[in-house]
């Protein structure tokens, strides 16, 4: 009698159980469903509890033992940059999240011209209205792109808003009393550089250089949930990189000897490039940079102008923020372009007006 069977005979009980288990696989949720999040969530809470205890121990035991002057000066400047930037970052992120959650996309399509070449100057001029420093403008530009504004126009706004907003222009006028041409030169050179970069980006820029910013929200989420989610997301991405920029700027602030900078002040072209480089390294907020520029009195006015035009558009903190928001592929192309445009405009406008 031939051994025939409808099914292959299982070799063992274990195999039969395993087969049966495999067979039921599709009706079961994935193996990791719900499993890691519970313990992981608890572990996270414990981790933070330990961290907070360590903060307390550190405060009680370590605070008085840190006496190295250079380290403390570094820590002061790092804390200062972080604290000073934080309200602006929170404001910018909240504004960006509000654009995402509450302003319908159709509004932007009505207000901003469809044609990117026409939208760029509009966006550049809009920068003169909205007060905000560079930490705020990156998330706002990101929010605009999310809402369908042409990237070239949003980037023009990103560049012009911190450079030519009313607070910055007033600060510049206060820092350079009796020199209104300094304010005019700053306005013209910054707006010119921002618009030219925008046009170049509209003509040659590619969308896939920027990290995709489309965010899908739960269709059932309320507007406030979308707002909170978008804010948390932007804070995590931009905030971490802001700290990187703050660390770099504080380090350079403490280790670059001021005498080196002063030594080159008399060389005409080199001094302009040196102040541009200093603006990039120091990463001072655009609302304060005019006072610093005014204090660099050995330098020519064109060099100071370069400091004021380059600083709000290219600096370490800003590069880090942009990398966190748009990705390094974008930064590698955008930052050199902006740097060249700002330098060209600094030399040209400095030569014409100052």
């Amino acid at each position: 009698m031939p051994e025939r069977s409808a099914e292959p005979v299982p070799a063992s009980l274990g195999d039969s159980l395993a087969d049966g288990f495999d067979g039921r696989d599709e009706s079961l949720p994935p193996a990791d469903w719900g499993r890691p999040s519970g313990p992981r969530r608890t572990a996270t809470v414990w981790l933070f509890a330990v961290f907070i205890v360590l903060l307390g121990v550190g405060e009680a035991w370590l605070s008085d033992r840190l006496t190295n002057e250079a380290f403390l000066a570094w820590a002061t400047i790092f804390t200062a940059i972080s604290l000073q930037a934080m309200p602006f970052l929170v404001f910018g992120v909240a504004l960006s999240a509000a654009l995402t959650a509450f302003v319908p996309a159709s509004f932007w399509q009505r207000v901003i011209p469809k044609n990117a070449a026409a939208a760029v100057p509009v966006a550049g001029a809009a920068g003169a209205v909205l007060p905000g420093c560079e930490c705020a403008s990156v998330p706002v530009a990101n929010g605009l792109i999310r809402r369908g504004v042409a990237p070239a126009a949003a980037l023009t706004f990103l560049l012009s808003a911190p450079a030519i907003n009313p607070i910055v222009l007033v600060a510049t006028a206060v820092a350079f009393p009796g020199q209104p041409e300094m304010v005019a030169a700053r306005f013209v050179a910054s707006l010119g550089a921002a618009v030219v970069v925008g046009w170049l980006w509209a003509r040659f820029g590619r969308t896939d250089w920027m990290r995709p910013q489309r965010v899908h929200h739960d269709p059932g989420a309320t507007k406030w949930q979308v707002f909170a989610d978008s804010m948390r997301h932007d804070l995590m991405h931009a905030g971490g990189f802001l700290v990187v920029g703050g660390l770099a700027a504080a380090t350079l602030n403490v280790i670059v000897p001021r005498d080196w900078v002063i030594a080159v002040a008399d060389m005409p072209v080199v001094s302009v490039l040196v102040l541009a480089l200093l603006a990039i390294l120091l990463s001072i907020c655009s609302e304060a940079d005019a006072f610093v520029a005014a204090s660099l009195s050995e330098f020519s006015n064109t060099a100071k102008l370069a400091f004021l035009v380059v600083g709000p558009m290219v600096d370490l903190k800003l590069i880090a923020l942009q990398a966190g928001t748009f990705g390094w592929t974008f930064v590698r192309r955008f930052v050199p372009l902006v740097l060249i445009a700002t330098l060209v405009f600094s030399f040209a406008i400095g030569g014409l007006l100052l």
Partner: protein
Amino acid sequence: MNRIAQGLVLVLLGAASLSATLATDLYLNYVQEVFRPFLIGAGVVLVVLGVVSIAADVRVASQGGDAPEDHAYDDYAHAGHGHDHGRGPGVAWLLLLPVVAVFVIAPPPLGAYSASNGAAAEAPKEAEEGGFADLGTNGDGPRTMELQEFVMRAWTDQDRALSGREVELTGFVVPHPDGKGWYLARLQMACCAADAIVNRVLITGEKEPAKDTWWTVRGTWQEPKGELQDVRDHRFTVTEMKDVENPPDPYE
């Protein structure tokens, strides 16, 4: 970085901002006084946002589910070049550094170290005509001035009204690099400590007090012989000096 960790980071960051402004005056070591309401506002927003994030996560967990955002439902995440919306990037852990800086290090205001290495205020290029505050006369008693006001006046007032006028200045002691006297200095901050520049007067007639100690000195400006703007450091003749507790706002 999962959602609950992000929420906790936000709460801690907000707490650092609130503790430096509401519980203590620590923020004055780093930024201008006008920043206080903005720091408080940012702190409150961060704490609220953090609590909302944690609460949402816990609510989803208690319903037996996983936070929906923990599954990549951003289309681009599947394409391999996007980021998952629910999970934070690793770099966000760095947001704990300012928290450590405020709670553990609590860095002191910049002092003599930065004043000897940082940027010193320089003579402005143009002299100003008039527009100066009336200094009164010595009969009115000594005039209290900020160091910043004093050195600017000394550099720019072609009428040299400061000459002979008794003035009171407050600042901290910075050693002279060559040991020829010492500086009474004060840091001037436009926005935050990163842009601080130092205003200082050179004192040669008095024995040098300990570095970084604060003094109020009374005396007069030593009028220079040549052009005002060629002066590197203005000199000050001290008639009387007394030590002071650190003023509440260390910067001018």
